[in-house]
């Protein structure tokens, strides 16, 4: 049995479970754990250990299943930042103290009422004097409070002048940004890069000392340091999405995205062996744009991304109905995450029909065209379904604007930050899943995610999808021109009217796709790692 390494270098504070790539990694690791022909070690920075543990625990993998190498102690700078974060959370958790305070306050009010009762009913001078004595500290406290509020009022008069000064604003803005939006602060990013570089050096030391590891695999192309590993390396390039929509991305993520783009290009340019999810990315991106030799690139398509296990209820007289009820409960929770729709909880009856597109909002995701098609369907064709999306509408302001200007805020629900179960529930409850994306690294997960829970799907006719949906008849039923909103609208309307027959056709495709399990995928990766680390390949490379 040979040993291979998995290289991970995600930034701190990233919850892998919430990331598409994290879920992909989880599927990979689940099968890698029991792979009979290879064992894996994972190399990661110190700050990723917890996130990795959580990811493994979340998918039921024992924490001891993989050897994890790399620095153990986090840098002090990061620890301090984490302490600060904990402090904020601890401050929020102090509601118990507040609760106690409220109880005391209630008790105090009751006692005061009782004392007042005594005060007005007593006929004893002694008792009256005692009550006055008891009240004395509170009178003093009240006087002190009046004094404090007077000082505060005085400070309030000075404050506006101070707040207007340029120096004050400059530093206060920087502090606010570092503490609230660390990713948006150039200072934080610069400091992080220094920390990352040092951590990478330490990590490389650990890695290069492990001569028992035959080859290393990086599941994404964000880490040029990976190329400094001495053993054979396999880099996965899911896509280079910024190059697919250059103008659209120019106003997203600012220079941070540009820096990431540079990292991806550096990773590709310094890379050795590559793997992609599709022929399209292999040829259009790696071969044509980056002039990588086709022989250095393997294609390993995704396994079927199934969601049914997350929501399938068993052990009830009517499991189907119980599953639906469970999904309705999850949808209720998901509605709490709606952004831009007032009182979205109004739609929690379980009776609301909707179309679903699960995706973050990025220029290549083609959300605007979907919105245009949806508005036409709603207002001209009287298709009453809602459209449920999962992106944050402010990520691309034109989306938020369109929704607002066209008065769609009660029909287009942006449920952002869904858990995996909530996502599965949305798919299950939807009448139709739609994916209008213009470019993806592989066939969009929408296809198998929707079909795994019995929901039909229509998608944009793009190369990566056509690699998987190859039957021309089925293509004509379920694919639309993603550049043509009218075609998209017509396909959605047709699919809603013919959802049973469409699903029946698609389930046949799904059966075939579901045969390609993640075990198959892992075996293919192992075969590639095996090949690139075999003496013949290594000597060729030398």
């Amino acid at each position, binding site marked *: 049995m040979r040993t291979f390494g998995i290289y991970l270098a995600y930034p701190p504070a990233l919850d892998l479970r919430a990331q598409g790539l994290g879920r992909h990694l989880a599927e990979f690791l689940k099968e890698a754990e029991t792979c009979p022909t290879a064992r894996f070690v994972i190399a990661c920075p110190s700050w990723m250990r917890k996130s990795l543990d959580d990811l493994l625990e979340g*998918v*039921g993998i024992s924490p001891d299943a993989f050897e994890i190498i790399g620095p153990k102690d986090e840098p002090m700078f990061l620890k301090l930042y984490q302490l600060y974060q904990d402090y904020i959370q601890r401050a929020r958790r102090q509601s118990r103290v507040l609760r106690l305070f409220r109880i005391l306050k209630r008790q105090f009010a009751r006692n005061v009422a009782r004392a007042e009762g005594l005060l007005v009913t007593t006929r004893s001078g002694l008792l009256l004097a005692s009550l006055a004595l008891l009240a004395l500290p509170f009178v003093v406290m009240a006087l002190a409070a009046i004094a404090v509020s007077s000082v505060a009022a005085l400070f309030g008069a000075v404050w506006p002048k101070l707040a207007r000064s340029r120096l004050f604003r400059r530093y206060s803005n920087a502090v606010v940004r570092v503490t609230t939006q660390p990713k948006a602060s150039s200072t934080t990013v610069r400091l992080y890069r220094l920390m990352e570089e040092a951590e990478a050096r330490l990590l490389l030391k650990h890695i290069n000392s492990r001569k028992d590891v035959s080859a290393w695999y990086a599941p994404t192309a964000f880490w040029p340091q990976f190329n400094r590993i001495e053993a054979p390396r396999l880099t996965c390039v899911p896509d280079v999405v910024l190059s697919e929509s250059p103008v659209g991305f120019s106003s997203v993520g600012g220079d941070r995205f540009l820096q990431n783009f540079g990292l991806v290009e550096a990773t590709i340019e310094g890379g050795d062996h590559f793997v992609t999810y599709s022929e399209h990315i292999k040829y259009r991106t790696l071969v044509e744009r980056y002039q990588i030799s086709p022989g250095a690139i393997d294609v390993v398509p995704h396994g079927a991304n199934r969601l049914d296990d997350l929501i399938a209820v068993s*052990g009830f007289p009517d499991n189907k*109905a119980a599953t639906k009820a469970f999904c309705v*409960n999850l949808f209720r929770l998901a509605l709490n995450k709606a952004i831009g729709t007032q*009182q979205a909880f109004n739609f929690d*009856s379980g009776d609301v029909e909707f179309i679903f597109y699960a995706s973050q909002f990025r220029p290549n995701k083609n959300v605007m065209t979907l919105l245009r098609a949806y508005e036409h369907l709603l207002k001209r064709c009287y298709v*009453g379904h809602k459209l449920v999306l999962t992106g944050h509408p402010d990520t691309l302001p034109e989306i938020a604007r369109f929704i607002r200007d066209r*008065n769609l805020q*009660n029909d287009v629900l942006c449920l952002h930050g869904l858990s995996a179960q909530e996502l599965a529930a949305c798919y299950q409850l939807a009448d139709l899943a739609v994916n209008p994306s213009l470019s993806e690294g592989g066939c969009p997960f929408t296809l198998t995610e929707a079909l795994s829970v019995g929901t039909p799907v229509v998608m944009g006719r793009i190369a990566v999808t056509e690699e998987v949906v190859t039957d021309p008849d089925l293509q004509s039923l379920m694919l639309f021109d993603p550049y043509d909103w009218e075609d998209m609208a017509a396909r959605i309307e047709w699919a809603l009217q013919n959802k049973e027959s469409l699903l029946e056709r698609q389930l046949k495709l799904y059966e075939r796709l579901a045969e390609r399990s993640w075990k198959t995928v892992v075996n293919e990766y192992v075969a590639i790692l095996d090949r690139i680390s075999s003496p013949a390949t290594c000597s060729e490379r030398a």
Partner: protein
Amino acid sequence: MWLLNHTAAREFEIPMLKRIGVREIFLPKKIPADPTFRSASVDWSEDEHLTIPNDDLAILNDADWYHNPGIEAWQTASKHFDIAFFILLKIDFLKSMSRHFEGAKIWRTYGNAKISYSEILDLFARGAGPVWSPVTSKNLWFGQAYPHLAAKEPNFIAKKAVFLPAGLADASVRDEWNGDDKRIFFVCPDLAFNDYYQAVYRTFKKAFAGLPYAVGGSQPISVKDPHVLGYLPNEQHRRNMRELRVMYYHSTEPDHIHYHPFEAVRSGMPLVFMAGGLLDRLGGIDLPGRSKTPKEARQKIERILSGDRRLIDSIRQSQQRLLEPMKADACEADWRAGLGRVLGKLRESSPSISLANKPKKRIAVLLPVAYRGGSLRGAILLARAIATGSRMGGDDIEVVFGHLDDPACYPKEAFKDLPLYIKRRPYHWRILSHDEAVRACAYAGLNGSLAHKTYQAPDDGISQFTDCDLWIVVSDRLDFPLLPVRPYLLMIYDYLQRYQTPFNDDTNQRFVARGHVAEAVMVTTAFTAGDARQFAGIPAKKIKKVPMLAPEFFANENPARLEDDIGRFFLWTTNLAPHKNHENAFKALRLYYEKYGGSLKCHVTGVDTRDLFKRDVPHLRGLKDIRSLSAAIKQHLKIEGELPDQSYQARLSRAAFLWHPGRVDNGTLSVVEAARLGVPALSSDYPAMREMDEQFALHLTWMDPDDPDNMARELKRMETDSETLRRRLPSAEQLAGQSVDRLASAYWSVIKDYL
């Protein structure tokens, strides 16, 4: 009626009821398909002991006793049963039960983790206001399974408490435990989705890290954790109870307990449990298995796992005390006393006593804003339908018609269609602050919290319509929530705001919210029903579709008579609202005259139409330009303005056809009026008009309101085909089939459910 499905509770309570003399018990056959309903099952065995007719039993067996089972099921229940035990999952259940069940109602309560039952009522009411009214609380009991539960509740609930203790069907000790499997048995269900149990499990793992354990409990969604046993056949479960070394029970909830600690005690398995929970009340606080902290529990469990016989024996021997209060013998006296009290009160309020003082039921139909024209006519028709429907249904109901007190808007002649038996009351809206609303609710006998700062109530200067048992508000145009002193229904004709933007979203939210707290929303088209569900989010069960009502226009008995009297014009009935689609209509007219050689004149009638070219609003601004560019329009278009009814009908009856080029709304009854006068119509194609066409068999001709060319072509076709179309119009008999008298019973069958 024991309207619960909890298996363990049923196994104790049904024999207990029989033991204290209850002869016949109905058990529900439908359970909610909810994975959290894991302890439920259906039991048919009691049906054979029931002496009620089979048809009645079929009705009861078919009903959903967790939602609103419907008036028929309740009436059947009232006929045969004295008491209904229930748990509360939906507020609609409590409301419908209060309205229609005449027996005693026992809300069976087994304690909650963190929330009181009064808070549950507020939660379920979703801001609708207090549910606990004199009607609701009549013969309603708080059937607490543990004697201290009512202490947490406000007085209005606490005073209704009756103690019916929880127990075990078999509380004997089997003592079959051997403890050969040296693991802790920890029961923690629903781990894949329940936050509470997930947190409990995390705490458990932290406290007992390094010790061997197995997790029992139902897992409706599979969990990838080797410790979790998941579903087990009964035999395997029994074996676990015999062989696992020790059970740990985590709960410190003072008001609720699970059944599995008792199972452990019965099998003889040592139980280590946390102090502060309900076990303290049941077994005292000196049991050796009791632990004040998880650390103490761990120490005890470690000793048990390592075979400390002294501790094991001491726990096993003493813990049997926990079963004592759960035995039927111990519970019987309380059950007997409790049920005796309930039945005694029921006899005091027997129907013969209450019927003697029962006033006539009264329904108010309220027009909330100064609607005139079609809306006023519609509200009057609704009032008539209710009155007629109730009479036809054999119910003695009085209908009151409320309209805003605005003599200028509502002169007496505006109500000439309102029958004398429907009393008319002018009113104005009274705005109540939160404090005023709280006081009003208290005086009305309503207990519970109010969620809003401001409320509104119709003030007729008499009793603010509280003499009426039900309010029916025509439209949802209420700025504030209605004061919840009476149940109310909304009659909503459309949700135009979904397709146009007549007001901002805040206003929309206000209106939509009114529908959510109404008892039901009545609509007249499937399209509006769809919008109520899809756009407003009203639950489908609360949406009631009733037929469209059309006024009895002066019907022309024989449309053929008019054939020789047709003018060379068609009539466009409209107003200045944006959805009337004026710009496309003008473009279509231009094409009709200039491209297709149309020759009929176009007569425009309707409210404010004289201002068509004068009003400076965006959707009318382009009309002047279109007219100035087209000599044909100038020549053929004639603005008639708002005509009195008789003049309008005279004009309409001579028209070649009626033109309705508006965009989506709730449809216009002018096409029905036209059909009665023997005039065909060309209408925009949208759902409400399609439904109207179907209900009244109008054979309308259709056009696309977004395509002026198509509109113009269809106008030209009407010019040539109007005679043929006229012959396809419905007969007077067909239209009479859609009269208010014929449709009234459909209204009554919906409304009577809420009285």
